């Protein structure tokens, strides 16, 4: 059952709670819906705080250890806050051949950020991901929803500059 009043959380606004309730209600009786619910809730909040995972487990009537188990298994889910912009760098072979390593280290050095980490001002999160399926454009970086192809280590900082 969805709890009557959602818990207080600094990163979750009342509007977000409304959206979260809608996601849970739409999927409540669907078997196997937990991954879909986690994904859509993460889209709403940006990450999955512990309180939200508990809330989802109450809402779907699934034990919270099961929901945690699922959330921690899949790379897509993050229980830590993310930056305002998510940089995903392809670590697939085609991009490797075309020099993605240099691109990655340029980003790391410029923004003082490690793979899997977030900058202190929460502007960027940086992730290495498996082949993005855009090898024709290798090396490839995806920022939020934009795909940037043939990206050189010299050009990458100019591109990222536009994401405040």
């Amino acid at each position, binding site marked *: 059952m969805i709890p009557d009043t959602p818990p207080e959380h600094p990163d979750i606004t009342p509007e977000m709670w409304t959206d979260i309730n809608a996601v849970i209600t739409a999927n409540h009786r669907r078997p196997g819906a*937990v991954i879909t619910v986690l994904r859509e809730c993460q889209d709403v909040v940006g990450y999955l705080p512990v309180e939200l995972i508990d809330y989802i487990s109450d809402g779907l009537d699934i034990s919270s250890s099961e929901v945690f188990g699922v959330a921690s298994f899949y*790379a897509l889910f993050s229980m830590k806050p993310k930056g305002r912009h998510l940089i995903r760098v392809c670590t697939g072979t085609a991009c490797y051949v075309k020099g993605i390593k240099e691109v990655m280290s340029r980003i790391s050095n410029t923004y003082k950020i490690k793979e899997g980490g977030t900058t202190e001002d929460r502007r960027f999160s940086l992730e290495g991901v498996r*082949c993005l399926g855009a*090898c024709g454009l290798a090396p490839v970086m995806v920022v939020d*929803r934009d795909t940037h192809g043939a990206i050189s280590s010299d050009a990458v900082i100019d591109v990222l500059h536009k994401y405040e």
Partner: protein
Amino acid sequence: MAKLSVNDLEKIKTESAPAIAFQDRTYCLICGGTGCHATGSIAVKIALEQEIAAKGIADRVKVVETGCNGFCALGPLLVVHPGDIFYQKLTGDDIPELVESQLVKGQTVERLLYKDPVSKKRIACQNDIPFFAHQMPRALRNKGLINPEDINDYIGRDGYFGAARALFEMTPEEITEQMKISGLRGRGGAGFPTGVKWDFARKSGGADKFVLCNADEGDPGAFMDRSILEADPHAVLEGMVVAAKAIASNQGYIYVRTEYPLAVRRLGIAIDQAKEYGLLGEDILGSGFDFNIDIYQGAGAFVCGEETALMRSIEGRRGMPRPRPPFPAHKGLWDRPTILNNVETFANVPQIMLQGGAWYASVGTETSKGTKVFALSGDVNNIGLVEVPMGTPLRQIVYDIGGGIPKKKKFKAVQLGGPSGGCIPEQFIDTPVDFEAIVKVGAIMGSGGAIVMDENTCMVD
């Protein structure tokens, strides 16, 4: 829109014939795959539409956004029909000249045509370009030719006629028989004969069987499935309908990577349109057969491409592989009999129903029939999507189609089969594309990622 009968399907096909043959007007086919979107094809499309309107020729020129054309390295791409004129690397600034010259005066714009890296000559006609000339599109037969968001385009190119034949004229056993004759082996990597797999599930008793499509494409250098889903989503849906009839299933799922937003969107549109026409859902085409398909988005775990892990993931659990037996054909999703096939495998099915298993098996080698799609990337001139008959030597893919290695460097190896595959060095480059022959030289066919490496790339990393 009312639900269609087979007669209605024929009617739509007849009505769209002139458009499909590019006879009723001039067509500008703009590539709208993920690759070309990233290089700016949407801006080119908008500029083109505005310029066409400004010149007052909108009544005789139609702009169509297609899926991936295949020659990703040269995007944004535009193909003009009739004439099959191929324009490449376009920007918005090129559009006024292109419209005035090509569309108003009927003269090609030399400087925007493809330039052959060997002869240095410009080539106007798409089919004269070596990259395309050596290919045999079957799974990719509609790529770059239809609007993937318009089901009528698909029907115009014989879409859903394969399903109609399977639903009205064939028994489940006849379907699996034709699949066996075709010799089609799974395109997801393992190469298991598709007809045999379906036959197991057909014979397993009970209701509530499932048909699953594996679109979790995760091997590095692989973008075949993405391109098929973006360019021709209905081919996959139709293949699943045929499979459903063969094993008596009423529910299908397509498991797609969440990193493929455009593929997810186009699949969603395709499913909605198919439902509206009664090509999915209850009583398909009035045959009395029911089948539904839902999309399931993955959550980023490579192992979920493995079949038992994928099924657990759809059940909402941690995607861990489990030992077999029991095989999914007996106990799969929710412990029900289930078949799982790859995107490319399903895309081949409609034509096999329509033209027969023997037609499909007419090309290929002794043990590997038909064609295979490869995603060619890395240190090679013509990066893109390639479909060739089985038995084609790798040399032809890398050199004749791929245009060889850039910057006059030497070929070192081509990696096939992703991380679990292997690198095929120079001395084996005449190996034919064939499941067994590739294993003999130390790699595996895999799903179709082919990454070329030149002498400077270190293979150890």
